[in-house]
């Protein structure tokens, strides 16, 4: 097939399938929103049992605000892709080689981000399929880490990560694909958005009751005002910002996945950058 044909295909694709893609996006977002609403409302209810149960109207409102934020999160990079690719298609002959390259790089970056976001959506539908209790299996930590880093390397060749694990193999019950998604989100944040100078560290510690994972970067750290609410609290819709920063949704997914594992998630500054830690219990709950 000639190059011209390939490009024609792409143009055709962008014009005919754009609507469909947007629809798909919204459907995905709706799944995620519905699920997170159910989970988060439930957990906030457990914490504040004395307070009134949320009414149907509250739930609908939460659902709507979630739907809006997540759709925005998918729609923004998608429209950047559409814009940048059109720019290339219509002007590539008049643009410098470096400018063309820059356009393609941006498209590549946005599509990588979208792929991870869709990974998040799939992780959530997977959680939903399993209902209240997820199915965990004993997994070897180094294998899960190894595969995650390979996936990262494929997406972003040449990224440097330092990994420190205990000498003896560590087994923890988990849903490996979900924990990989947690690691991918944390690595995405620290490798791509933290402005880290030097490689990111991943440290695994084997405790008596739990295994602790730490992802540490050497970037600009978490801004003071964000430390309190690291992930979006979807159960308090009145506090939801109009537009979410991209990493907010990723962390909310991490939190949801770890809750389902009876694990914990935390984030702090360590002086020279940010550090996110999560734990997984060693006994099956």
């Amino acid at each position, binding site marked *: *097939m000639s190059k011209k044909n390939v490009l024609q295909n792409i143009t055709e*694709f962008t014009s005919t399938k754009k609507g469909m893609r947007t629809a798909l996006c919204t459907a995905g977002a709706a799944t995620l929103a519905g699920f997170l609403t159910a989970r988060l409302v439930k957990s906030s209810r457990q914490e504040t049992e004395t307070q009134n149960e949320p009414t149907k109207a509250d739930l609908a409102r939460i659902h709507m605000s979630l739907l809006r934020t997540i759709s925005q999160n998918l729609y923004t990079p998608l429209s950047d892709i559409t814009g940048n690719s059109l720019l290339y298609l219509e002007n590539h002959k008049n643009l410098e080689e470096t400018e063309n390259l820059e356009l393609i790089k941006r498209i590549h970056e946005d599509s990588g981000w979208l792929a991870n976001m869709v990974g998040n959506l799939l992780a959530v539908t997977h959680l939903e399929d399993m209902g209240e209790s997820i199915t965990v299996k004993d*997994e070897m930590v180094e294998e*899960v880490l190894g595969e995650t880093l390979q996936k990262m390397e494929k997406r972003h060749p040449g990224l440097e990560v330092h990994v420190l694990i205990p000498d003896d*193999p560590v087994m923890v019950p988990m849903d*490996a694909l979900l924990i990989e998604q947690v690691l991918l989100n944390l690595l995405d944040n620290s490798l791509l958005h933290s402005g880290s100078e030097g490689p990111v560290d991943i440290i695994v510690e084997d405790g008596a009751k739990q295994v602790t994972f730490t992802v540490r970067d050497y970037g600009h750290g978490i801004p003071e005002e964000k430390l309190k609410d690291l992930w979006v609290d979807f159960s308090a819709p009145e506090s939801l910002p109009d537009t979410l920063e991209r990493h907010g949704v990723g962390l909310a997914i991490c939190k949801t996945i770890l809750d389902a594992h009876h694990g914990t998630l935390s984030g702090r500054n360590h002086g020279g950058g940010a550090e996110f830690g999560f734990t997984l219990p060693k006994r099956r709950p």
Partner: protein
Amino acid sequence: MNAKVRLLIIEDDKNFRAYIADLLGRDGYQVFSAADGGEGLSLAASLCPDLILLDLGLPDIGGFEVLRRLRGWSRAPVIIVSAHGEEQSKVTALDLGADDYVTKPVYPKELTARIRTALRHARKSAPEEIYRALGLEIYFDRRSICLEGKPVHLTQIEYQLLTLLAENAGRVLTYDAIQRHIWGPYIDASNQILRVNMANIRRKIEKNPAQPQYLFTEVGVGYRMRENENE
């Protein structure tokens, strides 16, 4: 003159077909494409391609059924193109006789490596005598393993595991296939013994077991060893 290697891609997404045709055409392959299972099966029968790329989510006949029918008469290597997170379908497809799989998004280097490996294994008449990649060397006839020129000592089971993976370097082997080969059909299904042995081998040949250079894990599916540079 060498005839071009002929590949058939069976995939319903038009843009993905165009991408594959463009990518592999550049690599010197002759690429044919089919948009659904029916067309794929009839093209496979008339063209007798050297390798088939098969998407599992086809609109008419399911990918598994296409694979089953193909395997009724064809031994051409089949590489599955699978969507994110379909571990169980990957295992099913491998059990049905697929040779390997790639997951979307498909990265050019990864796909061409898988294709080279599958074609090589299909052509191979005699087993390799030496495995060599980075600093690792395995001499199958002498039963010896060297890392950076120094001998590595493995237990009997570890040696069997490593050589099985090295003989199939570049291709995924499922937990089940490995276990049946080493321990026979009556091993329990938890993979625990296999994984402990793999962890031990990693400690003997990898600098960092969590950043392996030779033995890669495909969680929920099996293991894959780095391609043999000696072939």
